[in-house]
């Protein structure tokens, strides 16, 4: 695959993911909804899987996590550092979970397999992101990491994975249906569209941060 096309793919999917975390996440948070669970179960899994369906490239989801995590740092609401660390980890964990699967998803022929992979992805991406941010955020922020705190909150983390697992259990089979659609975009449309949408995501989030 053309490297420029791939890099722009990483950038647009990462930007859309980061934008969702910053803008839609804030709406969920204000509405008192379980934001982290909804963001992982629906938005993160959707963008990560769509990128895998349409680009078939290893390493792409790690790149998307880095782009989305960087964008999340500019969000004036919530815990910037914790969320950014979690997002980067989520991209890497998703990549690891799907590492052994082919890019044409031929192993996931049955609905049971597709839903099961959704559950596994939603659950492990959520709890891994949570655990990694609980370890790395205090270290990066220099506030001190206490292992006993992580042990005590482990049941909360494990319990928190159920909602994203169930959501992803529906999202993954639905998205795998979409892989049959031919969404090939010609280069002359692809490049300006991806650059434009990515730039818009960044302008809105960074602009909101500067005005806050």
């Amino acid at each position, binding site marked *: 695959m053309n490297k420029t096309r791939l890099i722009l793919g990483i950038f647009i999917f990462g930007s859309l993911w980061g934008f969702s975390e910053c803008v839609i996440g804030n709406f969920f948070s204000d509405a008192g909804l379980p934001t982290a669970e909804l963001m992982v179960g629906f938005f993160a899994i959707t963008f990560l899987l769509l990128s895998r369906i349409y680009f078939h490239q290893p390493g792409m989801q790690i790149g998307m996590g880095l782009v989305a995590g960087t964008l999340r740092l500019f969000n*004036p*609401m*919530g*815990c*910037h*550092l*914790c969320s950014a660390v979690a997002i980067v980890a989520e991209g890497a964990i998703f990549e690891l979970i799907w590492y052994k699967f*082919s890019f044409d998803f*031929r*192993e996931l022929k*049955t609905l*049971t*397999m597709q*839903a*099961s*992979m959704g*559950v*596994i992805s939603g*659950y*492990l991406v959520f709890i891994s992101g949570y655990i990694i*941010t*609980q370890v790395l*955020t*205090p270290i990066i*922020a220099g*506030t*001190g990491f*206490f292992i*006993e*705190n992580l042990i*005590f*909150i482990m*049941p*909360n983390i*494990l*319990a*928190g*994975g*159920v909602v994203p*697992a*169930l959501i992803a*259990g529906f999202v993954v089979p639905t998205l795998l249906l979409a892989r049959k659609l031919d969404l090939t975009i010609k280069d002359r449309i692809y490049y300006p569209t991806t650059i434009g949408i990515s730039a818009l995501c960044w302008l809105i989030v960074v602009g909101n941060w500067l005005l806050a």
Partner: protein
Amino acid sequence: MPATMILGKEKIIPIIAISLLLVGTSSAIYVNETKIDKETIAINGIEYTVDQIFAIGTIKTITTDDGEKTGIALDELMYKLNINCPDCSSYTIKGSDNYQQTVDWDILKTGILTDYRKVFFPDTAHYLWVKNIVEIEVNNK
């Protein structure tokens, strides 16, 4: 990919998915069962109501990246509660849902406790902002 490997995956993947859901569900039941439902806050083993804490402490407003927050200054509160060597202790702040975080004096002294039982610290990541606090444990070093 060999067909036998795909068949193996067909069996093991649903089992892993069900196992993860069972772990999550049993953890949720555990968290719900162990949730602490009380109106007081135990500080160094002694129970205080929020009103008592506000009567003892000094109200302070701090600026965080989430705006201004007003509550009782935690440093003065620890001094007024006669905590043994406040500045050489660490503090484990526990929420009703068993979420907890430990902070050293250098962080605690900058923070406040609000009347809705949440702590805020300026210039720290929000994971330290424990809500629905039921206990502040003093750990002497």
